[in-house]
C-alpha cells in the first residue's frame, strides 16, 4: 500500500520524532508562560489589596468607624472598584459593595479565595475573588479584587496552547508527508533503475535531480560505479570470448585427428601415432588451462599469501642456469649480469616463472636469426637494483616487437603473425604482466636496437639503501 510505504519511510519517521520534540518544547514554553503570568497577576492583586487596606486602616485610625464607612462607601462607587465590606464583630454589614460571600468566609482572617456577589450584579451569579480580612477594633474590614481578569488571561494562554498544538501537529504531519513523498519518489525512481539494471540492462543510470544534495551525490557515485562495472564486464567478456575461441581451435584439431584416424588407415602403427598425438595435443590444452588459472590467480591477488623475501639476483642466476644449455643448443650465448643483490618481497615461484617465460621467449624468437647470421647472438639476463625499483631484464637480438603491438602482446592469447608458427599458447607475456602487477610493478617491452628488451620492474623490499 502506498500510504503504508509512505509511513515507513525514514523521512516520515524523522518528521514524527521532530514533531513530538517540537510539541513538547512548545507545551513547556506555554506552560511556563501561563504559570508565570498567573503568578504575576496574583502578585499585582495582592499588592493592590494591601495598599487599599493600608489606606483604609489609616482612615479608621484618624476618624474612627465613621470615617472608615464614608471612605468605603466612596471607594465602592468608583467604576472598576475593588470589593469592600465592613462588618460589626457579629457579622452584620455596615458598608461596602459585597452582597454575599461564601458561608463562613468572614470568620476567617487573612488571605482567602472565595466566591462572592456584588449588590449591583444579578442574584445567583457568583464570581470568585481574592480577599484579605483584617480586624479593626472589633470591626472587620474585607478588601478584595475580582479574579476574572486573571482567569481570562490564563484561559487565553491555554487556548493558544491548544490551537498551536493542533496547528503544529497538522502542519508537521502534512510536511512529513510532503517531504517523504518527495524523497520517496526519487528513491522509487532509483530503485526502478536499479531493478532494470539487475535484470541485465547495464545501460541504465540513476536519475540525478541536479540539486547537488546527498541523494544526487549518491546517484553520481552509483553511476560511476556502474560505469566501472560495465568496463570490467566488457573486458571480462572479451577475455572469455578469446578463451572460448582459442580453446576451440586445438579442440577442433584434436577431434579432426581422431576422426581421421578412424576413417583412414587401420594399422596398429597408425592408431598408435594418432593416439600419441592426441595425448600431446591434450597435454598442450592442459598447459593452456594451467597458465590461464595461474594468470587468474595472480590477478585475483590470491598468490599474495605466499610472499617471502628473496634475492632477485639469485632468481636471475637460477633461471639462466636452467636455460643456458638450451640457448647454447640453439646457437645463442646466454649471459648473466646479476652481481648485485636485489632484495624483493614476493612469490618466488611466480617471479621465477615470469622470468623463465621471458627467457624462453627470447630463445624462441632470437634463435632463427642467430642461425641465419652464423655467429652466436647474445641474450643478456640482468638483475638491476636502482633506487626504488628492482628490475629483471632480458635482452635479445631477435626481431623484437613493433612498437604498435607492444601493448597488445600482453593480452591473453594474442600472438603476432610472425610467431604463430612457433609453439606456444599466447599466454606467456600475459602471465609475466599479471605477476608484475601482483607485486605492484609492471612489465615494460622496449626496443633493444635491434631486438627486444623485456623489463620486469618491481618495488624493492625493505628500506632503500639496505642490501
Amino acid at each position, binding site marked *: 500500500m502506498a500510504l503504508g510505504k509512505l509511513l515507513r519511510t525514514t523521512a516520515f519517521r524523522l518528521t514524527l520524532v521532530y514533531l513530538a520534540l517540537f510539541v513538547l518544547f512548545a507545551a513547556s514554553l506555554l506552560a511556563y508562560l501561563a504559570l508565570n503570568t498567573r503568578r504575576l497577576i496574583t502578585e499585582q492583586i495582592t499588592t493592590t489589596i494591601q495598599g487599599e487596606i493600608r489606606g483604609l486602616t489609616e482612615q479608621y485610625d484618624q476618624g474612627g468607624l465613621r470615617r472608615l464607612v464614608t471612605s468605603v462607601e466612596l471607594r465602592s462607587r468608583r467604576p472598576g472598584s475593588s470589593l469592600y465590606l465592613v462588618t460589626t464583630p457579629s457579622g452584620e454589614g455596615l458598608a461596602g459593595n459585597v452582597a454575599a460571600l461564601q458561608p463562613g468566609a468572614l470568620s476567617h482572617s487573612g488571605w482567602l479565595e472565595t466566591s462572592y456577589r456584588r449588590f449591583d450584579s444579578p442574584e445567583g451569579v457568583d464570581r470568585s475573588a481574592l480577599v484579605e480580612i483584617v480586624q479593626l477594633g472589633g470591626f472587620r474590614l474585607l478588601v478584595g479584587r475580582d479574579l476574572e481578569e486573571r482567569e481570562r488571561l490564563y484561559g487565553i494562554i491555554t487556548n493558544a496552547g491548544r490551537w498551536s498544538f493542533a496547528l503544529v501537529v497538522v502542519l508537521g504531519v502534512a510536511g512529513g508527508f510532503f517531504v517523504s513523498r518527495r524523497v520517496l519518489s526519487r528513491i522509487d525512481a532509483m530503485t526502478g533503475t536499479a531493478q532494470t539494471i539487475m535484470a541485465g540492462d547495464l545501460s541504465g543510470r540513476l536519475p540525478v535531480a541536479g540539486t547537488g544534495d546527498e541523494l544526487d551525490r549518491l546517484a553520481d557515485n552509483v553511476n560511476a560505479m556502474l560505469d566501472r562495472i560495465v568496463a570490467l564486464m566488457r573486458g571480462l567478456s572479451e577475455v572469455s570470448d578469446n578463451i572460448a575461441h582459442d580453446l576451440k581451435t586445438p579442440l577442433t584439431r584434436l577431434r579432426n585427428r581422431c576422426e581421421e584416424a578412424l576413417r583412414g588407415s587401420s594399422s596398429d602403427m597408425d592408431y598408435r601415432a594418432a593416439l*600419441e598425438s592426441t*595425448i600431446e595435443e591434450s*597435454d598442450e590444452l*592442459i*598447459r593452456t588451462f*594451467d597458465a590461464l*588459472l*595461474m594468470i587468474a*590467480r595472480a590477478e585475483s591477488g*590470491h*598468490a599474495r*599469501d*605466499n610472499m617471502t623475501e628473496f634475492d632477485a639476483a639469485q632468481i636471475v642466476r*637460477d633461471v639462466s*642456469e*636452467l*636455460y643456458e*644449455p*638450451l640457448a*647454447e*643448443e640453439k646457437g645463442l650465448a646466454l649471459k648473466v649480469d646479476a652481481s648485485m643483490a636485489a632484495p624483493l618481497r614476493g*612469490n618466488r*615461484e*611466480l617471479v*621465477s*616463472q615470469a622470468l*623463465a*617465460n621471458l627467457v*624462453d621467449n627470447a*630463445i*624462441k624468437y632470437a634463435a632463427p636469426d642467430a642461425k641465419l647470421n652464423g655467429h652466436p647472438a647474445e641474450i643478456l639476463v640482468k638483475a638491476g637494483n636502482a633506487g626504488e625499483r628492482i628490475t629483471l631484464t632480458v635482452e635479445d637480438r631477435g626481431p623484437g616487437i613493433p612498437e604498435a603491438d607492444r601493448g597488445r602482446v600482453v593480452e591473453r592469447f594474442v600472438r603476432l603473425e610472425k610467431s604463430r608458427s612457433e*609453439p*606456444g*599458447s599466447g599466454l*606467456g607475456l600475459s602471465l609475466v604482466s599479471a605477476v608484475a602487477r601482483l607485486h605492484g610493478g609492471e612489465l615494460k617491452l622496449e626496443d633493444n636496437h635491434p631486438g627486444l628488451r623485456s623489463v620486469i620492474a618491481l618495488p624493492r623490499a625493505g628500506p632503500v639503501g639496505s642490501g
Partner: protein
Amino acid sequence: MRLLIIEDDRDATEYLVKAFREVGHVADQAADGEEGQALALDGQYDVLIVDRMLPKRDGLSIIATLRANSVETPVLILSALGQVDDRVKGLRSGGDDYLSKPYAFSELLARVEALARRRGSRGEETVYRVADLELNRLSHEVSRAGQELQLQPREFRLLEYLMRHAGQVVTRTMLLENVWDYHFDPQTNVIDVHISRLRSKIDKGFTQPLLHTVRGAGYMIREGAR
C-alpha cells in the same frame, strides 16, 4: 607393491587400479574419506594415493590422522588444485608428494615407485654406484671406470637424484621439482638439454650407456639394456 587409492571418482579409480595391475602392482580402493582412513590405518600399504577433496573426510585430515597414529606410509596427494600454494599446503600437512590433475599415468607411476622405494631408501648411503659409475655424496666426486668426471654443481645434483632412483623412471617434472625446486612447467623442454649434457659427460666414450631415455615418461639410470 601394494597401493591404496582413496578417490571418489569411480571411473578414475577403476582406470588406475587396472593400469597399476598391468605393471604388476596391487591397488585397493576406497571411495570416501572414512573408509579410506580405516583401511590406511590398519592395512599394510607401500604407498597411499589420496585425493584432496573427498566425501566425509578430506584428504589432508586423513594424512594428519595417520601421522598422529604413527602410520608413516608415504602419501601422494592427488588434486585438481594444482597451484603452487595448494601444493605447498599439501606437502606441509604431511603429504610426501603432490600431483595435480589431470596427470599422465607414467608420471603417477614414476612418483609412486619413487615413494615406495624411499622407505628402504639409499638416501643414507655415501656412495652411489651404478655399474662402473660412482658418485660420492660427501666429496662430490664422480668417476666412471676409475676415471674422474668433471661435473657442474647442478649436473652433480641431477646425477645424484637419478642415481638415488637408479632403476626407476624419473620424469621431467620430478627432476624440475627436486633438482631445481621449480613447480611450474617451462614451455620448452629445458630438462632434455641438461640430460643430454650430462649424458655426454658420463656415457661418451663408453660402450655401455647408463643414462636412458624412457619414451613418453622420462629418464632412468641403470646397468645394461633391459
